[in-house]
């Protein structure tokens, strides 16, 4: 009785999880007309890849948006991962007052209203004539990517026993060299998780590029979706669902690569007891 109850609940939950995803893919394979038909067809009557073809041919914009997002997110990822290895190491290994204060500040930075920072950043970039540039996007993405990256990295480095480096230092290795040749190889999975996290957070962000870009040439995918497919009078649903699927795909691939480590990193802080 209890078992079949659990099974039923699990089926219901899985339906809730999977239906929206199924509906996205199914709709993306329909024609524009069929996508809004009533009664709806569960599966496309004659599946077509037309919407996907349109994304990459007719609507040139989409290719630009994807490109922009890749460039900006890769730069954000590189900066926050590199800096977080250095900073995370210092926060993990040294217990100076400055370090403790900085760690608190980094944690509190997550509380700050991003939109408040955006107001000032907008003015800042406007004065430097940097609005509508990759630089502005990368710097503003660092706002949320870096603090979390440093905090995660500190957690990963905490899990590496100090004795390992001490042994290396006795062998005449300098501290910095010990970091790169001894600690870094051990925490490669952690570093990957931090990189993927930074990439995802940047890839997902809508708030910053919506305010900081104005031309089509600099739009990221999120802004591209908002400003291209959703019209005042009519939304091109089939195309929008195809675009949504393409935007989701890189994220899913990146996630599958590091899922194990990412979950571990997230839970590491929480499950100490």
């Amino acid at each position, binding site marked *: 009785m209890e078992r079949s109850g659990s099974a039923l609940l699990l089926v219901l939950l899985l339906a809730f999880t999977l239906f929206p995803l199924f509906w996205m893919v199914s709709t993306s394979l329909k024609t524009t007309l069929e996508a809004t038909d009533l009664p709806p067809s569960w599966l496309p009557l004659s599946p077509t890849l037309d919407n996907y073809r349109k994304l990459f041919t007719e609507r040139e914009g989409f290719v630009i948006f994807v490109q922009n997002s890749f460039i900006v997110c890769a730069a954000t990822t590189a900066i926050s991962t590199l800096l977080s290895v250095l900073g995370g190491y210092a926060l993990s290994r040294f217990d100076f007052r400055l370090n403790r204060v900085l760690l608190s500040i980094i944690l509190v930075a997550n509380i*700050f*209203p991003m*939109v408040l920072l955006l107001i000032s950043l907008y003015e800042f970039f406007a004065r430097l004539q940097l609005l509508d540039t990759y630089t502005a996007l990368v710097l503003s993405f660092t706002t949320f990517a870096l603090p979390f990256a440093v905090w995660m990295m500190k957690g990963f480095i905490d899990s590496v026993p100090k004795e390992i480096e001490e042994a290396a230092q006795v062998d005449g290795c300098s501290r910095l060299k010990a970091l790169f040749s001894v600690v870094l190889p051990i925490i490669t999975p952690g570093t990957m998780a931090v990189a993927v996290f930074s990439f995802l957070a940047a890839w997902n962000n809508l708030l910053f590029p919506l*305010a900081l870009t104005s031309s089509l040439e600099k739009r990221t995918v999120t802004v591209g979706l908002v400003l291209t497919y959703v019209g005042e009078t009519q939304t091109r649903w089939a195309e929008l669902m195809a675009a*949504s699927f393409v935007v989701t795909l890189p994220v899913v691939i990146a996630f599958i690569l590091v899922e194990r480590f990412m979950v571990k990193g997230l839970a590491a802080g929480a499950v100490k007891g």
Partner: protein
Amino acid sequence: MGQRAAASGRRRTWRWRYLMDLAYSVLLLAPVLGVLLVVVGYPLVRGVYFSFHEATPFTEVPRFVGFDNFARLLGDPTFHTAVVNTLVFNTASVVGGLFIGFAYALLLNRDSRVVRLTRAIAIMPWIVPYVVVGYLFLFMFNGRMGIINYALQQVGLIQDFLPWFSRGQLAMTAVITANIWQQYPFFLLMLLAGLQSVPAEVVDAARVDGAGSLAVFRYVTLPHLTGIILISTTLMIINNFNNFPIIWTMTSGGPVNATTTLVVLVFRTAFNDFNFGYAAAIATIWLASLLAFSQIYIRAMRGEVAA
């Protein structure tokens, strides 16, 4: 004599080592500190500065107005609506997400190939970009041909299609549903990690003492999870304050202001009305109220609550 010299020598090397460590630490932290000063520190201070000024993106020098912006806020009905909406959106999302995440976690707290696969599937919504989640649910809740209306009608729960996005409470429901779908996996992950760390001996001991499954859950499992529930809830509450894309893509805060949360209101005030001072004042109030909780938050994040 010799002994004392050796001791002072040791002290000197000790001090030398301390200084070297300090230098290393500062050197390693300098880049992080530098970047954070530019992209977080400065904007934060400047933002609070704006809240005491009248400013647009185009004004050369903001005009000091003291507490005028804050005084205006108190009597602004839109601000009040936004505060209430933020609380409703936030509470409902967190409660819903926690509930679904918990149910999943309890069902998937086993280890087999099937369970691992199911777990991977259950986590999927978490990685779907917010904007995509927004449009997906906008499509499904569509008032003219949405699949949700169609399903509800087929089951007999409604007679006519509901205009989800032109009635305030319905719009809020749609937005919250989308948000719960996106964020329950976070609760699932955290709670699963917690469940797996419940010591088996304690559970066995309770069983031997004659405790049923419900009693084990109530007196062993649940107390063990309190810390994790507190941490994940705190994190998600903060996260939801900043949750912009789902609401923006689905309703942009409408109809009228029925789904306008603080973040939407600040964005519109700053970038549609170009009223930087007033927008900054709203955000400053929000910041101040969250900072009040920051002590609990910091302790939770450092794992002190869990341990």
